[in-house]
């Protein structure tokens, strides 16, 4: 049993930048669940076993509404942002369901596959630029970030010439080391910008064949949603649409460059990029602090009773390294079947844009190592700036060289 002194502060720092904290393994090995202490001094149950995490995330007796008493926000800045959030990611069913239905058609497997040629074209354009500039690059700035930013701009119908602006505001959104005022001010700047984009489109008879255009025509003009709601959705999609994928591309490029034997397998058979991307999603699980819930009633989990009102962290980042499900979980192995990973979460809140993320990652990683076969990391792993205390894990920079 944990004593009060044994309850660690959350987030728990990582010992090694590519692995979750060792404490998660200790938690997994305990029969009873463990507790962690949040920034505001409140305790939350932490669940780290794959079966437990999946069970919680799929069960409607656990609420995602962030303003509930004891909801374990991971920092003061996150708490402030989440308290203001009025989008469906902060709603339980059935409210949540209505908005998901409006947006699911924009991210179907078929539609994302139809975008693949355009995503490939954007990716090739960025690699052309890298090669034209010499034999060194900072991959996050020159490749990982612009690729999903360009794609989500086109999908949404937001002018890409504002990318520097929206990338900067998005970075504030996931930072945990800033005051609530700074986080809220950045959020307001983004909302004002997207409000302007929406109003410009509304002024047109045909608001455009893109997501914001569709929402204006089908939802705003029919009175289904307000402009404020539309702007909130656009904000959610733009942040989720590039900040996450950019970090996954950077971390995956690093992992593949560090594991040339894995890269060789992809070179032998390009179709292996598909399972390789699933393995990268499992291994990195960049939404590393995601999974906060509050129990709406007493629930028994593996013989242990969680009480109504208790705060809970059900961490996919830990679950995806559970040796009961993934053998040698700390090894990168693109030949394993990693498809059961829950990097996109589980339950009704599972990532809406996962098919887009998959196409982007598959194209980015396959083309990068195909066209720059001798790509090397121009630093040691210890020298690389990992995003420790950021809600979405990743790399601030990734210096690379070739030739």
């Amino acid at each position, binding site marked *: 049993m944990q004593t009060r002194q044994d309850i660690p502060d959350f987030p728990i720092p990582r010992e090694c930048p590519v692995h979750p904290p060792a404490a998660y393994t200790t938690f997994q090995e305990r029969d009873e669940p463990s507790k962690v202490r949040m920034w505001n001094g409140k305790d939350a149950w932490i669940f780290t076993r794959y079966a437990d995490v999946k069970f919680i995330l799929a069960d409607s007796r656990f609420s995602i509404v962030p303003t509930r008493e004891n909801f374990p926000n991971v920092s003061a800045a996150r708490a402030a942002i989440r308290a203001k959030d009025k989008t469906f990611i902060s709603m339980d069913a059935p409210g949540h369901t209505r908005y998901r239905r409006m947006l*699911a058609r924009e991210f179907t497997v078929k539609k994302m596959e139809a975008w693949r040629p355009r995503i490939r074209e954007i990716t090739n354009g960025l690699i052309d630029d890298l090669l034209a500039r010499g034999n060194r690059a900072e991959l996050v700035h020159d490749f990982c970030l612009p690729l999903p930013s360009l794609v989500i701009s086109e999908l949404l119908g937001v002018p890409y010439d504002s990318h520097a602006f929206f990338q900067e505001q998005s970075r504030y959104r996931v930072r945990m080391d800033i005051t609530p005022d700074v986080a809220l001010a950045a959020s307001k700047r983004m909302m004002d910008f997207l409000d302007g984009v929406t109003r410009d489109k509304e002024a047109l008879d045909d608001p455009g064949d893109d997501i914001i255009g569709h929402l204006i025509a089908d939802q705003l003009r029919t009175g289904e949603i307000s402009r404020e709601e539309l702007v909130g959705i656009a904000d959610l999609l733009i942040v989720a649409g590039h900040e996450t994928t950019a970090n996954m591309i950077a971390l995956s490029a690093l992992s593949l460059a560090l594991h040339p034997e894995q890269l060789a397998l992809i070179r032998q058979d390009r179709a292996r990029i598909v399972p390789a991307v699933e393995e990268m999603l499992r291994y990195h699980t960049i939404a590393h602090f995601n999974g906060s819930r509050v129990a709406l009633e007493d629930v028994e989990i593996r013989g242990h009773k969680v009480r109504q009102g208790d705060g809970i962290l059900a961490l996919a980042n830990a679950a995806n390294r559970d040796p009961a499900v993934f053998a040698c979980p700390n090894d990168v192995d693109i030949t394993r079947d990693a498809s059961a990973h829950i990097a996109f979460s589980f339950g009704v809140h599972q990532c809406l844009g996962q098919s887009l993320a998959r196409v982007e990652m598959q194209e980015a990683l396959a083309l990068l190592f195909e066209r720059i076969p001798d790509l090397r990391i121009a630093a040691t792993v210890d020298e690389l700036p990992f995003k420790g205390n950021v809600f979405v894990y990743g790399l601030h920079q990734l210096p690379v060289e070739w030739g």
Partner: protein
Amino acid sequence: MKITVYPDKCVGVGQCVVAAPTLFSQNDDDGQVIQLKQKPDAAEYQAARAAVRLCPASALAIEED
């Protein structure tokens, strides 16, 4: 083997389409699951089980023979 679909539970992420493209599709209008075949062929059993396992919203169920 028989597959049952619960469209009310579907959240439209398309995991079933990726796992078993001959058994499931998505509606263009709302991304909801469309069942292409209720009784999969023996060669599709593995894909059918994967689709059920991967569905995040318990919108699919299998009745084994």
